[in-house]
C-alpha cells in the first residue's frame, strides 16, 4: 500500500483537525438522529406538519455532537453522515444530496466567525446563545432545501400558504431541540470524557 504523506488535497486538509474519534462521534449522533427520525416518518400522514419533528430531532443530536467535537467541519460531516444513512438504509434522491450537503456551510461559517471573535471553537460551541443562532440558521436552510425539493423538484402541490406557518413552527421547534441538545451535551461531555 503506497501512501503520499506530503500531498494532501485542500478538502482533506480542511478535515485534518478531526480525529477518527471525532468522526465516529459524529456518525453515532447522525445514527441516533436517524433512529429518532422514525417519529417523523410515522407522522408523515399529517404532512407537512410532521416537518418540525425532523428539525427537532436533527438539532437535538447535532448540538451535543458539535459540543463534543468543537472543530470546524463537524456540522458538515454530521450532515454527510445522515445523508449516507439515508442512502444505505432508505434510498435517497441524489439531486437532494447536493442541496442538503450545502446546508451546513453557512452555519459553519457563522461558528467560524464567532469562534474568531470569542477566542476559539471551544468557547463558541459551549455558548447556548451562539448554539441557538447556529441551530436557527441550520433549521432555516434545511427547511428551505427540503421545501425546494418537495415543491419544485418532486412537484408536490402543497399550498404555498402553508410554507410560512410550517416554517415558523420548524424554527421554534428547532430552537427547542438545540436548547434540549445543549443540556444533553453538557451532561454527556462529562460522562463520556
Amino acid at each position: 500500500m503506497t501512501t503520499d504523506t506530503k500531498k494532501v488535497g485542500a478538502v482533506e486538509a480542511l478535515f485534518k483537525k478531526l480525529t477518527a474519534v471525532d468522526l465516529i462521534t459524529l456518525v453515532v449522533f447522525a445514527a441516533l438522529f436517524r433512529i429518532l427520525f422514525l417519529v417523523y416518518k410515522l407522522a408523515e400522514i399529517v404532512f407537512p406538519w410532521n416537518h418540525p419533528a425532523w428539525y427537532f430531532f436533527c438539532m437535538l443530536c447535532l448540538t451535543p455532537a458539535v459540543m463534543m467535537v468543537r472543530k470546524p467541519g463537524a456540522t458538515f460531516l454530521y450532515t454527510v453522515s445522515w445523508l449516507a444513512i439515508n442512502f444505505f438504509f432508505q434510498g435517497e434522491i441524489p439531486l437532494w444530496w447536493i442541496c442538503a450537503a450545502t446546508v451546513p456551510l453557512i452555519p459553519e461559517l457563522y461558528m467560524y466567525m464567532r469562534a474568531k471573535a470569542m477566542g476559539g471553537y471551544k468557547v463558541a460551541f459551549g455558548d447556548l446563545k451562539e448554539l441557538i443562532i447556529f441551530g436557527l440558521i441550520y433549521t432555516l436552510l434545511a427547511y428551505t432545501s427540503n421545501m425546494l425539493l418537495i415543491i419544485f423538484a418532486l412537484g408536490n402541490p402543497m399550498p404555498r400558504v402553508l410554507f410560512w406557518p410550517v416554517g415558523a413552527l420548524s424554527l421554534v421547534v428547532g430552537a427547542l431541540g438545540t436548547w434540549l441538545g445543549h443540556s444533553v451535551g453538557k451532561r454527556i461531555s462529562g460522562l463520556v470524557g
Partner: protein
Amino acid sequence: MASPIEFFSNVEKDSWVHRMDPRVKILMVLCLASLPLLFSDPLYLLGWFVLFLVLIMSAKIDIKPIMILFYGGLVMVFVYIMYGTFLAYPEETLVYAKFIWRWGPLVATDIGFYNGLILGSRLLILLMPIVLIIATSEPSMLAKGFMKLGMPITISFILLATLRFLPLVFEVATRVMEAQRVRGLNHKTFKERISNFKFLLLPLFINTLRQSRTLGLAVESKGFGARQWKEFYRDFAMTKTDWIILVILLIFVAAMLYIRFGLNLGWSAIYRP
C-alpha cells in the same frame, strides 16, 4: 431492523451489475436517479419503472432480504398519493373533474388521484435505482470507488462508519428499553411514551458513545489521516465492458435530454391549488 449480513446478502451474487466498476456504478445511479425528475407524464414514468425493474431483475437481486429499504419509501409514496387525492383543490380546478367523491370535509377527485399517482410514482421511481448500487456493491469497494472519484478519505470513512454504527445504535436502544421495562417503566400510552422519552435519551447517547469511541481510538492508533491512500490491496480497474456501459449511459442521457427538451415530450401538468 435487518442485520447488516442480511442487508448485504445480494453482494456475493454474480451479474453484469455486480462485475461493474464501482465508479461506473456510482455515475450510472446518479444519472438514473436524477433523470426521471424531468418527466411527469404517466406513460413515461411507467417506462422508467419498467426499465428499473428490468435492471434490478437482470442484476439477480433478491428483494426479500432488502425489503426494509422500501418500507420508508412506500410509506412516502402512499402518503403522496393520498395527499394528492384529498388536497383541497380550488373550485375552478374541480370544474374539470369528471369524478367527485365527498365525505365530510374530504373531497376526492379524479384530478387529485391522477396528481397523487404522478407524485407517488415519481418518488418511487427515484428510489429504485439506489437498490442497484446498495445490493450489488461491497461497502468497502464502494468507498474505494468514491475515493478513486476524488472523494476525501474522511468522507469515505464516514460512509463506511454509518454502515457499522446504525445497527449498533438500534441494538443499544433496544437493550436500554428492555432494561427499563424490566425495572417497571411503563410505555403503555402515548403520553407515557413521551414522558419516558427523557429516560431513554441519556443512557442511549452515553452507552452508544462509550461503545463506539473505542473503535475510533483503535483507528487513530493505526495512523488514520496521517497518510493519503492511493493504492489498495484489492484494487480494480476499468474494463472494456465498463467503458462500453459508460458510452451507452452517455448516449442514453443525451437521448433523454433530447426527448424532454428537444422534442418537449414526457411532461404532464400537475394541478396546483
